[in-house]
Every structure is written in C-alpha cells, then in structure tokens.
C-alpha cells in the first residue's frame, strides 16, 4: 500500500500520485484495501485543449469515481464532504479556507460579470498551494511573491529574471531548449532555468498584478503570452508555437511566438503573472470576442486568434488603424486589464 504524505489517504501500489491533491505517494505498511475512492479533480465544464498524447492515460492518473475519498482511519459511516473549487474544480476538505491546488479562496463566490468574464480569484496573503510533494506559498497582494518549498524529486522551471531569492543549497540547472536561434531572434527567453528540490526558492514579477494559478490536469494544452509565465512544475512540458499569419505577428502585440504548456499523464502547476486584474471567459464553439491584442494572457490551444484591423479616419489626417484580436472558441481565454509592461526603471 501507499499513502499520501499530505492528506494521509491510502492508495494501492499501482498508483503513483494522490488523486486528490497530486502529491507523490510514498510506500506504506500493508493495510486492508478498503474502497480506494477519490474525487475527480479534473476541470468539469472546462473545454480542454487537444490531447497531446492520444494514448489513454494510465489508471492511476485518471480517476473514475466521484465519491468522496475515504481516509484510512476515518469511520466508515462518516462520508467526508468536499468543497469544489470554483476556479480549478479541485476538491478540498470541508474545513479548507482556500483551494489546495490553486489557492483560490473557498469562502468567496466566483465573481462573474454580466458579460460572462470570470475574475481570477485574488489569492489571500500567505495562502499555501500544494503540487507534487512540494508547496508554494503566495505572499503579498500588490506584487505577489510565489515562495516554493521544493521536495526531493520535484523541480520547477522559469525565466531567470523572475527569481527573487533562494536558499544557497537549492540546486539550479538549465533546461535544454530546441530552436535556440529562433528563440533568440524572436526575443523569447533563450535560457530557461531549473530549480530542484530539496530547497526553497521564490519568484516575483516587477509590476502590480495577480498570480494566476493554473493547475493543469492531464492532457491539457495551454498557450500563454510570452514572458507571462512565472514558473511551471516539472510535470509540464514547455514548448512554443509560432503565431501564424503576418498580420498576427506584426499587429498581434506579442511577437512571433507564444509559450505552450502541455501536460502528459500527470497534473502540473503553472503560475502566470497578469498585469492588473485577470479575467477569464469560456467561448463556445464558433463564439468570438474581440480583444486588445496586448491584453491577451492565455488561451486553450483550441481557441483560434486572428488579428483584424479597423480603420479609423478623420478627414485630412487620414486616421489610424486599430488592431483587435478575434478569439474564436471553443475554449478559455484569459485577459489582463493592464496591458502595457511598465519597466521598473
């Protein structure tokens, strides 16, 4: 038998990760194999992007039942109630104040505007988020810091300039990247750094904004505006996609490439930084929305983006052209309300 060191639930030997919080399981003394049930943390109602790896996920990564999990030492007649996080859909203990997977406050209802934009949850100061066997604590609210306590075997990758501080013994490395010359020419980070557990390391961006915690469930594919990602766990593979179309490249407000984050068979944690406030909207198939290209933050890979130009003329001066990105569903689109990067200098 194995058990989860975080929530203390037990699982059989075929499983590698806790189905509730994603923590790596550890070997345990043999126990009676009472019903190993756990909730499905996958995002119900989220239109997921194309599945990158079409092979069916192994049984341990694909929870099938939605009954509440049983703690090994809990009374059999006392079913545990669970709170579903409205942001990431993960299940949490009834007494939890914030989501274990994304840090969203559980005592505050989703804020959805009349037009359908859902405000990203403002993570309370000092909220702790769990991924693998590691934790991430979000500190501060105006320019939040993500402080990671990496466990042995866990690692994260990031752009080196977002690093705030680290323990001197936290190992560091560099992630090998393909297309280095392309990346250099496109202004994308040429070197992606890695930090390994055990050890502590902290990250922050240099502007007022929000930490957007995106727990990626297996088989998800997310496109993110370049330089918007703060860090990602090693469970997530990182690549980039070239933006198609000259107009999109020239007027899309984000250069030639977008970051692409893909999960395989394991869930992962992705932290983005949005300038100002962050909003998300789910587009139905064929539904479109026009957004300021600089406001784009992330989208499911299934959402298409095309820049359209509207000519605004006024008599002698000829006017100007205004470029807007048409995002067409199905899928999620995330935007940030402050869309010009203010350099600290």
């Amino acid at each position, binding site marked *: 038998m194995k058990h989860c060191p975080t929530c203390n639930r037990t699982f059989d030997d075929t499983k590698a990760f806790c189905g509730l919080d994603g923590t790596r399981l550890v070997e345990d003394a043999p126990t009676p194999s009472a019903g190993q049930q756990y909730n499905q943390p996958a995002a119900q109602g989220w239109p997921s992007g194309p599945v990158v790896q079409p092979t069916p996920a192994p049984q341990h990564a694909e929870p099938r039942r939605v009954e509440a999990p049983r703690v090994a030492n809990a009374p059999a007649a006392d079913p545990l109630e669970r709170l579903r996080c409205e942001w990431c859909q993960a299940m949490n203990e009834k007494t939890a104040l914030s989501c274990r997977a994304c840090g969203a406050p559980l005592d505050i209802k989703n*804020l959805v*505007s*009349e*037009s359908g*934009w859902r*405000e990203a949850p*403002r993570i309370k100061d000092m909220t702790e988020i769990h991924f693998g066997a590691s934790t991430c604590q979000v500190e501060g609210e*105006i320019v939040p810091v993500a402080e990671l306590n990496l466990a042995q075997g866990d690692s994260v990758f990031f752009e080196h300039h977002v690093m705030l501080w680290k323990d001197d013994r936290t190992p560091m490395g560099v992630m090998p990247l393909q297309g280095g010359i392309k990346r250099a020419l496109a202004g994308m980070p040429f070197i992606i750094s890695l930090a390994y557990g055990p050890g502590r390391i902290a990250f922050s961006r240099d502007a*007022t*904004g*929000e930490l957007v915690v995106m727990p990626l469930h297996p088989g998800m594919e997310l496109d993110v505006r370049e330089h918007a990602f703060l860090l990602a766990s090693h469970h997530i593979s990182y690549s980039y996609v070239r933006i198609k179309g000259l107009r999109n490249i020239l007027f899309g407000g984000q250069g030639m490439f977008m970051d692409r984050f893909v999960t395989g068979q394991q869930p992962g944690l992705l932290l983005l930084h949005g*300038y*100002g*406030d962050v*909003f998300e909207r789910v587009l139905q198939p064929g539904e*479109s*929305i*026009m*957004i*300021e290209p600089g*406001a784009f933050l992330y989208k499911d890979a299934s959402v298409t983006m095309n820049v359209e130009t*509207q000519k*605004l*003329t*006024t*008599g*002698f*001066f000829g*006017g*100007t052209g*205004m470029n*807007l990105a*048409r995002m067409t569903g199905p899928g999620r689109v995330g*935007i*940030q*309300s*402050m*869309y*010009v990067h*203010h350099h600290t200098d």
Partner: protein
Amino acid sequence: MTLGGTAPNQPTRTHTCPWCGLVSDGTQLNCPACGATIDVERIVTNSGWTELPGRHDMAKLQFGNSHCQIEGTYVPVADFNLSPADGVYFSHHVLLWKEPQVNITAMSLKGAWKRLFAGLPLIMTQAVGPGHIAFSMDAAGEVIALPLQPGQGVDVREHIFMVATLNITYDWFSTNVWFNTRNGDETETHYPLGAYMDRFYAPQSPGLLLLHAAGNVFTRHLAQGQTILVKPTALLFKDPSVQMQLHFEHPNGTTRSWRSWGERYLWLRLFGPGRVAVQSAYAHMHDNGRNITRHSTATRQRW
C-alpha cells in the same frame, strides 16, 4: 431623483450618495449612478479631504437604458452593456475588448493640428449599442465615476479621461499655466499641468463620465476665495469655477540664484469656489532647475 419604490405600508427609506448626490432607496450595496459603496461610512480627513468612496467589485452603474459594470480592483475594467440607443466615446488606446457586433467609428475633433502638437489624442472613437464593450487604463488605480447632471461641467487634466456617454460634450482649453527656462540661447517652455485640459459638459440630459486615477483619490470643496496648493500632476479634475495659477516657493536657507532645482518648489494654486480632486500617485514633475525667464500669472513665497 429617486430610484426604485417601496411598498405602500412601508416607511420610505432613502440614501443620498455623498459622492454624486443621487438619492436612491438604499437597497443596493452600491450607488446605482456612480458605484460608490453605501454601506461604508464617508471618510473625511482632518484637513477636509474626502476619500473617494470604495466600490464593491462588480458594482453596476445605470445610465440611460444601459449600464456599466466595474470589474477588478487594481486595474479596474469598465464593462459597458450598451442598449441600442446609447453610445460612448473614448480614446482608442483604452479599449480592452468588445463584442464583434459593436461597431466603432471615429469621432471628429476640432483643432486637430493643435491637438497633434499638444500630444492630445487626435482621434476620439465612439461605439454605439447594442452590445458589450470594455475599457481599462494601463495603470493601477481607481475608476472614478462622475455622473454629470444637465448644465454641469468638469475640467479634467489631460490623459485622465477614460470614457464618456455620447450626451456629454467634449472640449478642451489652454491651461495658461507655464514658465520658460533659458539655457544659453535656447528657451524651453514648460507646462506643469499640460498645455491643455479636457472639459466635459452635459448640456441637456444627464451623462456618465469615467476617469482613471493613479493611486487613491481625494476631493474637497473650496469655498469662495479659499485657496489651496497642490502638485500640478496630482490634480485630477476641478469644477470650471475653480481658477488656477502657478506658485513658486523658496525654502529658507537657500540661495536666490535659482540655479539649482532644490531651491524652488513648484505648486499649482487653486482658487474656489468649487470642487477639486487629487490623486495620490502622481507623475514626477521634472524641473531642470534653470533660471526662469518668463512665466504665466504666479504668486511667490520666500521663506
């Protein structure tokens, strides 16, 4: 103006918004005209400045047959749901997103050459309903909702304006607040407040004006003849009745050569009567410290 109604047997309960003066039935958490919270006490400093009332996230403002929802807290978004007969105008760089069916067109402005040279937006854009359209500025701060009643106007420092309804007129005027410095044969003209200010006016029907301020916002009402000094870039808006001019101040113990920036402080003097508003995060005003050769009407104080 009274909104809503009460049951015949219930006592009438009203709430007067301290920010915009609207009388409502007080059943909502926010003033329906300006979004100010009505369940929080008005905050007035000992010196008489009133802090802009807070706003609940997702507060809704009503204007005409349309409404506007203010979303977010750090860099708020103004999300308009325009009815077919209503429209708004804005500077195109504040547009955040829109529904495809909302059509946007250019609104011609007079004095294009002057605007071009003054750095003012050359093209004002307008959008007409039906549909949703949203705006945000690219800086942390507050969205200020100023409902303008018929016959009411307000002067706004340049680049503060966010969006206004079509029944509000837009004009601009020279601030006449300037000074010249000389460096050898070169003369440089400085406009601490900007060369021009925007003026918004509601001629016949009430309208809604949204401004964006950096940091926190404070207002006060100056009595007839009352004066106050503010940093020029901290000024947000004022009633048209409030007059302004430069004020130079020289601290005690410094030389009078005016060769160093540290030897003078530059202020904007505001004269009542009328309302003035300032923001707490204001742009750094560069003073090259050189000798001032000419200036607009100003007062001076040497300590």
